[in-house]
């Protein structure tokens, strides 16, 4: 099983710049600047089938192609490292181990897009990641992989770290751009899309850390090779899965994209904890609807997971055992989203606290027969909120209603939580 992002021999330690270079680091950048045109780089990424690793799974090459090349003024690349979804910690693991790969990925991306100034938007809590990045940027600059006229190619790049004040909403790319500009992190009206009018009104691409970290391998080994790393012919590349919950090994693993869910849990995760049996899991970070035993065989790739009624999201898998009350779990997650709502649009700002209130009532045994329908109506309404994070916030509730309605109704009919003591 090939790994291109994580290095098993380096778990828990940060690769030094020298170690990264010795293992073939920055060769991809040399290759690109040595003989590839920016378009070649972009084409390779398109051919690789790389899809965004930040949650939405949008084809990366396609996103790049939306950037108009004829507008005056600078273009910007922003790396989104505002990882704040409960259950997701892959970017932290990656940056604590290998910040260089992100820098090389960003350099390649900037070359492809004609960007000369890029930012890494780092979540407040990621002190270590930011420190690693700072050291890595210093080393790369000294070695001539950043700065002006990189490797004599005429291509220049300034890379800056922005440690944000942090909020979940900063994960939304336009809110992130606002935050980077120093104004309140609210999503922006689209259109115009960031690719046309983003940071300071200039064309801007926002990509996730893991997405950008995959670029060097695509360039170094070619898109076909990279695509072939996946477990299924439809999938492309590898994916970081970060595991938490009632399994033996709660770690971040790099696995071929398309590995079936059951294989992940039984394989690298080492199966359930002693005494635990699998009840459900969140397949891709807190905003994705639950999977149950029936989804054991679903290939963990964007389309198959979507077909099965959830989303691959960030690949943050949270496993629940038989003793988990799904109403309580959903309440916990919904509280997070209610707190993190930016307060911009009505359904999210007003609806989520009401959902919390309703779920609390149900969990306390005070629910009424009409509550499930009211929940359902909110799930519907939040689909039409201002930004994509609101429907995301409804993932758990939607999953609860679809897969665990019996359990929900049991709370109401019994007048208490069946899992309580």
């Amino acid at each position, binding site marked *: 099983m090939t790994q291109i992002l994580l290095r098993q021999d380096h778990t828990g330690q940060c690769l030094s710049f020298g170690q990264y270079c010795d293992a073939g680091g920055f060769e991809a950048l040399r290759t690109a600047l040595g003989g590839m045109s920016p378009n070649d780089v972009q084409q390779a990424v398109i051919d690789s089938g790389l899809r965004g690793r930040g949650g939405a799974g949008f084809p990366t090459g396609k996103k790049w192609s939306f950037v108009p090349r004829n507008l005056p003024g600078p273009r910007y690349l922003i790396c989104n490292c505002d990882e704040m979804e409960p259950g997701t910690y892959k970017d932290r693991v990656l940056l604590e181990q290998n910040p260089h790969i992100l820098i090389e990925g960003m350099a390649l991306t900037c070359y492809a897009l004609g960007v000369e100034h890029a930012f890494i938007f780092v979540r407040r809590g990621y002190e270590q990641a930011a420190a690693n990045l700072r050291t890595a940027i210093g080393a790369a600059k000294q070695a001539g992989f950043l700065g002006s006229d990189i490797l004599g190619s005429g291509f220049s790049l300034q890379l800056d770290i922005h440690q944000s004040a942090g*909020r979940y*909403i900063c994960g939304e790319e336009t809110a992130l751009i606002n935050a980077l500009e120093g104004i*309140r992190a*609210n999503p922006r*009206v*689209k*259109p115009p899309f960031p690719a046309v009018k983003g940071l300071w009104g200039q064309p801007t691409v926002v990509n996730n850390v893991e997405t950008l970290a995959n670029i060097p391998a695509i360039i170094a080994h070619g898109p076909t090779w990279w695509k072939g790393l996946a477990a299924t012919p439809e999938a492309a590349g590898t994916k970081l899965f970060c595991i938490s919950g009632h399994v033996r090994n709660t770690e971040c693993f790099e696995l071929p994209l398309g590995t079936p869910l059951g294989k992940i849990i039984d394989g690298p995760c080492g199966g359930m904890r002693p005494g635990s049996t699998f009840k459900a899991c969140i397949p891709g970070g807190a905003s994705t609807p639950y999977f149950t035993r029936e989804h054991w065989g679903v290939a963990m790739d964007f389309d198959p997971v979507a077909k099965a009624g959830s989303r691959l999201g960030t690949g943050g898998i949270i496993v629940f055992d038989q003793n988990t009350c799904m109403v309580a779990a959903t309440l916990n997650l919904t509280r997070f989203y*209610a*707190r*993190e*709502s*930016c*307060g*911009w*649009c*009505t*359904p999210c*700002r*007003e*609806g*989520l*606290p*009401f959902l919390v*209130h309703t779920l609390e009532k149900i969990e306390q045994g005070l629910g009424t027969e*009409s509550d499930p329908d*009211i929940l359902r*109506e909110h799930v519907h*309404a939040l*689909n*039409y*909120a*201002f930004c994509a994070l609101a429907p995301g916030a409804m993932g758990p509730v939607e999953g609860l209603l679809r897969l665990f309605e019996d359990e929900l109704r049991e709370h109401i009919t019994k007048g208490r939580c069946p899992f309580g003591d």
Partner: protein
Amino acid sequence: MVNLTIDDKQVTAPKNATIYDAAKLNGIKIPILCHDSKLKPFGACRMCLVEVEQMKGRQIPACTTPITEGMIIRTATPDIIKARKMVLELLLLNHPIDCPVCDKAGDCDLQNLTYEYEVNANRFADAKFNHVIDYNNPLIERDMNRCVLCGKCARICDEIVSFGALTFMDRGIETKIACEFEAPLNCEFCGSCVSVCPVGSLLARPFKFKARFWALTNQKTVCSYCGTGCNLTLGVKDNKVLTTVYDENQGFHKGQLCCRGRFGYQFINSERRLTTPLVRKNGTLVETTWDEAIEVIAAKMKTAGASTAALATPRITNEELILFKELMETVGSNNYDHSAGYAHAALTKGFVQSLGVAASPASILDVQKTDLLLVIKTDTYETHPVVGFEINMAVKNKEVKLNILSDKRGKLSKLPNAKTLIHVPGTEIAVINALAKVIVDEKLADGTAASVPGFAELEKALAAFTPDAVAAQCGLTAADIKQLATDYAKAEKALILFPVGLPYPGHNEDLASALANLAILTGKLGKEGCGVLCMAEKNNSQGAVDMGFYSTAGMDAGKIIDGCASGSVKTLFIAGENPVVSYPDHTKIAAALDKVDFLVVADLFMTETAAMADVVLPACSFAEKEGTFTSVDRRVQHIKPAIRKIGQCRSDFEIFGALITKLGGKPSATPAKTFEAISSSVAGYAGMSYASLGETGAYAAVSVKPSFVVPKTMSLASESGKLALVTGSALYHSGTMSQYGEGPMYVCPEGYVELSRNDASKMKIAENDLVIVTSSKGSIKLKAKISMRMPQGVLFAPYHFSETSINRICSGAPVTWVSLSK
């Protein structure tokens, strides 16, 4: 145009329209809460959701989604209705629903939509908000419990007012609108936020519990403060103007008003209004009848004959000014003037010589159509705040370049990419001449310039104004001057703005000519987005000039005052002016008015000037009479009475008419008749009638005959060790009348002197310390205001205030040299 289908109706709409715009254009109503056509799309409330067939029936916001060819839109499907109902249920979930005691009831978007969508009961229940209500501010009450977070207040304050007083704070359900760090509201108090609030969260406090919205009668009219000519709707009940009512469709400014326009209406029904004629008997003013008053005045004017003189405020109507002139002609005098004589010189002398017309060859609408604005003095914002909003929008939305030449920084200096060049006070004409010099020398002049009369003389006169020579005396660098000239000359379209008025004695005919020279040199005249806009101070300043109410053959204001002192003026009739406070050199004015044989004052209030009169006549405010006002850009607008006359007040029109009749003349019977005469005699007004003016007025044409004039520069006798005091307008005031408006007086109740931080720390002066400002004319005590905008060695003081009149120490020079002590 784009073709689309809305609710099975084939419609077309312009290319850049949103679904909401397209529907509105075609008479289809989509409900909105957070959308405002003046503001950028926001898309937060989700009331305007519609279904678009091409988007698989997804519900999308109509206010942010641009239309595309062939779009099929449904605005009222059962699903949509359900979604909108749900939005309302959610908004009402925490809303206090205290409509019976809410001033917004009847005019509340949330209330109206709740009614329209029949949200009879709420299926949801949750705790109500418990935000602290801000009752402390005298003008704007903030109750965030009623807020629907449409953000319009914060957005208008940012996008149009460009102040940014209000902002979103906290997140999730705790999100609220607040000032930064929850500080008290301390802003321009234009009330734009109040005007756009769809609910009762932001309320005009002076109107609290005064009347239910539906009990008001609305009268559209024109604001009587500055020369912008903003349209205004007065809310009237029981013959009282209780508020100004926001109408987003009114005027070029779309209902936007400034502090005095929105909150300064209380002078109309003020308890302090004069209500009966008064005559001085045994040294005191006692009540009298109109008959007696008219009789006495007519007799005195007749006796004085050619030694009668008149001073009028340019706040009265065109018709009244014409009649006043007629009155003077009846007694055989041509001694009449307004605004101290110098405040209209830019138009009546400067533009007349340079452009052949006493009017500005530009309109306020050009501000948003130009490429570059050259603003003389940041006070342009303070004197005409709604023009200031136009500048804000031009700079922020249309990327118009803003170059400011000023003796201090100001609000305009803070706009994005604004370039403020600070010159030594009083050197502006020299700088402008230097700009002309650069334009000529660098061959930046228009090809036609050399053939304009006076070119050779100008070119010769400019020899002394090389950038290096001027830079040395004005405190700018030669490079600054060259850059400013190049920017202006090379811009395809450029507009010059400068304020004139009583507090700007330096903004005279020479400044006007110097600026006109720039426009003529570069051919920036007579084209859209080009020209020079002279922003006269009062609501009808341009009208007073158009009506010819200034000295041509007789005495001007200065000579009239001198005449009073010397005895050559026997009878002085002052209509609305308050020279004792507003004219420079208080001691001289007061002595002269004391000396004059017979003084008549017609005014709304017992002003300092009226108190010296032999007869005082109670005049009507603009809200009690009919007539026309002419704005700075020569927009002639019809004002209509909103209330019946107060007490025994008579309009100036009636007063002058009665006197003419008494003196054996035949005055015009109605303002409408007088306006007919105006339209046949005043250049540019031809063809106008009250009917043709309509609600938005009509522009009087300005045709220009350019010639170059060599402007005189001021001699700068700087006094060592002294500070340069410049006067101006405070943002919240206009003339001395705004002292009778509650709003302006709440915000800015007294005079002050603004000084730089360096000067303050050198002299150990703290904010609000009382300081004594002393000039060669005398000294006054003022509160000190320390600000970042003042350059070292320069002081600023507003001139509006009776008690602390800055004219006690100023004598009408552009710069007054003063010393400060504690």
